[in-house]
């Protein structure tokens, strides 16, 4: 069957079998190997990507189900060559070791902060509770996400401060 899916703001049309899992479509057909897979039972979360505005386990979504929808993967976190604060946070706080769970963790982190700009450590742990990491023991992942949230809040405050100082431009 034919599908049309927007992935990281770019539209793809492809001929796929109905049973093709979204994770395999992204990795094998689009070459977006940043999202990974690690289990057979939807437990590990290495495959987390965004479907429209929410993170999903792409090993449990058919490509067919994503037809007409938008997908965002880790490759789409960086915008215009600038790392997302979540990506920066993970580097700053040693939130990754082998890197295999990291894309999924970051996609969930981005969604969490978008909806809850000041998440507590407990809220972060809850948001990540469906995703396994074997290397970090989770502590630094939590710190990385806190770093990103704080960094973004500081950036917003700085920009608000600038707006308050600046002369408003004429409406165009």
């Amino acid at each position, binding site marked *: 069957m034919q599908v049309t899916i927007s992935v990281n703001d770019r539209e793809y049309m492809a001929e796929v*079998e109905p*049973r*093709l899992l979204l994770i*395999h479509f992204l*990795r*094998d057909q689009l*070459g*977006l*190997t*940043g*999202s*990974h*897979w*690690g*289990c*057979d*039972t939807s*437990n*590990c979360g*290495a495959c987390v990507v965004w479907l429209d505005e929410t993170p999903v386990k792409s090993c449990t979504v058919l490509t067919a189900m994503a037809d007409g929808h938008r997908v965002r*993967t*880790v*490759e789409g*976190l*960086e915008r215009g060559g600038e*790392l997302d604060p979540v*990506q920066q946070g*993970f*580097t*700053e706080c*040693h939130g*990754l*070791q*082998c*890197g*295999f*769970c*990291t*894309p999924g963790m*970051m996609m969930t982190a981005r969604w969490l902060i978008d909806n809850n700009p000041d998440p507590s*450590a407990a809220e*972060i*742990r*809850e948001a*990540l*509770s*469906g*995703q*396994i*990491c*074997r*290397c*970090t*023991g*989770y*502590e*630094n*992942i*939590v710190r990385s996400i806190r770093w990103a949230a704080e960094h973004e809040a500081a950036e917003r405050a700085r920009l608000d401060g600038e707006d308050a100082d600046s002369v408003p431009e004429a409406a165009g």
Partner: protein
Amino acid sequence: MTAATQFSPNGAYGPLRRKEDARFIRGRGTFVDDIQLPGMLHGAILRSPLAHARITGIDTLAAEAHPKVRAVITGKTLEELQLAWMPTLSQDVQAVLATDKVRFQGQEVAFVVAEDRYAARVALELIDVTYEPLPPVVDARRALDPGAPLIRDDIAGQADNRIFDWEAGDRARTEEVFAAADVVLAQDMLYPRVHPAPLETCGTVADMDTISGKLTVWSTSQAPHAHRTMYALVTGLAEHKIRVISPDIGGGFGNKVGIYPGYICAVVGSMITGKPVKWMEDRSENLMSTSFARDYHMRGEIAATRDGRILGLRVRVLADHGAFNGAAQPTKFPAGFFGVFTGSYNLQTAHCEVTGVYTNKAPGGVAYSCSFRVTEAVYLVERMVDVLARELGTDPAELRMQNLLQPAQFPYTSVTGWEYDSGDYPRALRLALDIAGYPELRREQAEQRKGAGLAGEDAGQPGEDAGHPGTLMGIGVSFFTEAVGAGPRAHMDILGLGMADGADLRVYPTGKAVLAISVQTQGQGHETTFAQIVAAELGISPDDVDVVHGDTDRTPFGLGTYGSRSTPVSGAAAAVVARKVRERARIVAATMLEAAPDDLEWADGRWQVRGDPGQGKSIAEIAMAAHSGLELPDGVEGHLDAATVYNPPNLTYPFGAYICVVDVDPGTGKVNVRRFIAVDDCGVRINPMIVEGQVHGGLADGLGMALMQVIAFDSDGNCLGGSFMDYLLPTSMECPSWELGTTVTPSPHHPIGAKGVGESATVGSPPAVVNAVVDALAPFGVRHADMPLTPAVVWRAIQGRPLRNDLATT
């Protein structure tokens, strides 16, 4: 030319952010399944549904006829290539594809090569295998029963399921001491079968170039050079015609040390089809057929004086090795380093016996950050110390403090012959007790036991927060000594290969360096830490040192990463080779400065004239000069390159003190880990940020093993831990915010005093958690309960009807 950056060794050591992160945070890592080659085919393995059965027929015609299938390989195909069996790392053989019998559920029976992974999966269902079931041996405790089914009838002269008997220590002296001791206690304990379960499963892309005769294998391998040598020995291909590449690896933890049948099948598949063949196992294959860990049935005995002096330890172990002895440890150590079961204490004597047996389960045993069975050894001794503390009515921290080896005793040779290099154990324990606020914790526990009743209170949501009326608080202490960095060639080899590792260092004319190492990171951050080692020795920036690893064409020989050996062995090699380069540079600098080499001293990242620091040259300046027209003395060549192979003189002995605080809900058995305090001493720390990350990860392992992880079987040999729905791994919810502390006791024999830390936390944490839970249940008279301490296990322990959950009766 830019001025060389001034770095002191301390400047290069520190919490440097990792170089490897750049690609991983962008999703630009290259893991084996990311590799796509032109014309690449996909392999899949047909596995046995039965634990023990004779194969009476294999019909592959329908699979071969499938339009997308390019090859079907069976044991028969491999027999013709003499590849049906391969040597294991324990002087046994393992079937690559079964020929006569299948000996564990999940054993490899056939291999299909197809155009895509979905078609390969379809093709598996077209293969028809007929089996004649045989009674399986599932309970290791029954493996040596008279008349037990013989599993390894393929071995000439094998009459039963015994693999080996091994002992260490002084049997006679131990008997004497035990006979005369005031207190002798015995405790059976199981370290159940678990699995490392790295998030990335195992796999390979094999590409046999039939024209050049070169085989390239991308593999999830923690030991690419060892794999290459093995492939050479097994396939008959010349070693220099084999290239093994470990790209990025998504966690290893000992799961990726050995060569699996799937790798060999992919190689054969590529030879047959002339195309690259990728084989990636799925998670159930990983859990059911690759190297499991532990499965030690232990009986510990401890002898002590009435006033708490531990005199000796005696242990009897039954080791379940599965259907083939595939345990990965040095040759002369069939029970790995279990001999360090004497732990961190000043014992007079000790003795242990280990019997290894075959069962109808997957092969393995040594994996999952065990440091070659140190996990089992530490668990044993730390549980026994707690059993003794309970019997004597002594605080377990006090009892340990009373018996720990003292700093003056180091280097210390244990009663089983292990030479511990250095340690200040009391200091580490004191620090852990401080961080924990241990006296306050014991006070809280005493209050709780005095005041709150054990029934009739609403304990709230099962397993919820501390201090709820009705929950039982437990505090567990664990003190461990690790034995890592294998190892001296004279004593240790794997398949005849000595455990020395090489390092090659090249400094280019502009003073940038490339270090090629033989060990293989799977997340430990070698690209950063090894750059720091070289940077410290050469006074250059870690940014100016590139670390090359994972490709046998580009790196020196060595035995790879496991047993926490990277820093102790390869880290040493990196320091030594950098010092060789520095010494070369001394000679060139002397020429540049028109001084004698002996008149130069190394300070502030330069060779400078002693007494005239204004006259000095940095490595960058020297490198350029070495490659220039500068006239060098006779016999001195114009480069700053060096190679070394480091043969460690001894193991290194990191150590630590851990304290776990739990709250147990007696109405449900649910355990909540409230706090976990970990003080680690791994000698000199190159990158504290990375060290702490390693500790965090290992602590989660310990929590998982203590509370939820087990690869269980039913009495028919069906594996009950074949998915992440059944083999449970800890999440962010179960793990507390780890509280770390550190002491630094350098290793006297290591060039930079570092000891390695990768497995310390996995070694030290399970007994801390179990000791805590047993402590919580003390009011119920519980002396011991086996891992995993699931709610059911804990509740049944409270009822006095222990539950064994590694073996289910069907």
